């Protein structure tokens, strides 16, 4: 880890977990959703639900969804900025059950598109994304991350790792998940180095790879 995780980050207060962490959750959700956001339903759980106003957790999540980083002073005004940009935001208090106390579920809507992303702020300003649609995932956004949906069949994961290897991209961690055998597999791959567009299109062009998302580190 870096010394700047302890003396840092530079951030808008008041809380590493409830403000800076919440910005990161929103920011990662934006990277995963990728397309133009028209509407967001945000469900706040646990401590996020109880203390969001005093901590600015609502403004932080929306700031992240707008692409602001944790040190962006526009976070304070993010609810108005979202309105100006024509993005409809609604907050709901909810019990998501069995998740970290600082968790938000975001239902994101774009043109002909809907996606659900759940993220938790797990201490300091560290976070993790725990669910994307029906897929369980676990990544922090601290490293360059690929999320790949692929055909669930023997050798498919090997193909992905060989492609990455051929570009000298070292895998720091990898996690695969599927809802049903033989259907769609979801792979979360954290890498030591940033990934360029060329690698992403190579992966996308493979027959049995359905979707590739690259999430840049903060």
């Amino acid at each position: 880890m870096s010394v700047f995780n302890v003396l840092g980050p530079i951030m808008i207060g008041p809380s590493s977990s409830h403000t800076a962490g919440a910005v990161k959750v929103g920011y990662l959700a934006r990277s995963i959703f990728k397309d133009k956001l028209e509407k967001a339903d945000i469900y706040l759980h646990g401590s996020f639900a109880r203390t969001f106003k005093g901590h600015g957790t609502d403004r932080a999540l929306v700031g992240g969804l707008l692409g602001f980083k944790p040190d962006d002073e526009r976070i304070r005004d993010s609810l108005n900025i979202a309105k100006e940009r024509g993005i409809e935001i609604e907050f709901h208090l909810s019990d998501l059950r069995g998740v970290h106390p600082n968790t938000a579920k975001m239902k994101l809507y774009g043109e002909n598109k809907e996606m659900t992303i759940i993220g938790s702020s797990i201490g300091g300003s560290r976070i993790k994304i725990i669910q994307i649609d029906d897929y369980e995932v676990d990544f922090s956004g601290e490293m360059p991350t690929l999320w790949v949906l692929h055909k669930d069949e023997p050798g498919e994961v090997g193909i992905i790792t060989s492609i990455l290897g051929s570009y000298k991209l070292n895998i720091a961690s990898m996690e695969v998940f599927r809802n049903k055998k033989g259907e769609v597999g979801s792979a979360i791959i954290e890498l030591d180095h940033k990934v360029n567009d060329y690698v992403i299109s190579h992966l996308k062009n493979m027959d049995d790879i359905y979707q590739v998302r690259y999430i840049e580190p903060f």
Partner: protein
Amino acid sequence: MHYNKIRELIEKAEKEDKKISQIVISEEMDEREIGREAVIDEMKENLKIMRESIEEGLIPGRKSATGLTGGEALTLQDSDTALTTPLYKKVIVKALAVAGVNACMGKVVAGPTAGASGIVPAVLLTLAEENEIEEEKLIDALFTAGGLGEIVSKKATLAGAAGGCQAECGVGSAMAAGAAVELLGGSPQQVGDAFALALKNLLGLVCDPVAGLVEVPCVKRNGFAASHALTAVNMALSGIQSVIPPDEVIQAMMEVGDLLPVSLKETSEAGLAKTETGQKIAEDLQDF
């Protein structure tokens, strides 16, 4: 940084006749595969934001969104209590200023957390100013502060929700104390002593914020924890040692943190949060 113990950092520094900050800087360069200048520049940016947050915290009329805190730094600065030396007063004013900015959704450098962000800048910037220490050494000292905190984060925790406030303001005070000793020319051993002395005396500090917000007692506690660091610096520089070594104090902190009930770890279910006034504030803020 690949070190897991403050002892290892001290030994390495002593063996190579270096300051702890130099070890922390080279570790950061190695780990992230970047040059010295890039690492130093990143800390310079931190220092710039620390200075700005102190200035912002002294602008009159600022209140937090809830109205619970704001203006404490100015109140103290404008007072003429003869109780403390100018140095102590300046340290406390800066700590209150930064913590106040944090409570107002202003920009701060978290260290080790946002709630404890006033302590390290208050101690180090004031000591550098008062002793006319050059910028370069001040930046080095910030690396020492960060390196000490990094070891706590590896071996224990920096989250109030996991360890109570000892893990936030306690560690912040210990980081500031250790780094201040290096800034003032103390040995690596004395850095470790100041760190251990400061943290030992804040073991068991609970996290019981009113209404769950980083305001009461957090803002004023930054002032206390900053002045507390100065006592540890004084002792360590005079040659007083900590009987319990720093790494064992960190371990003790984790054990105490585990033993603390959940109600005193950032859940606002006990302590100040459950006082008559604390509960009333929480109720008043319900519809806020």
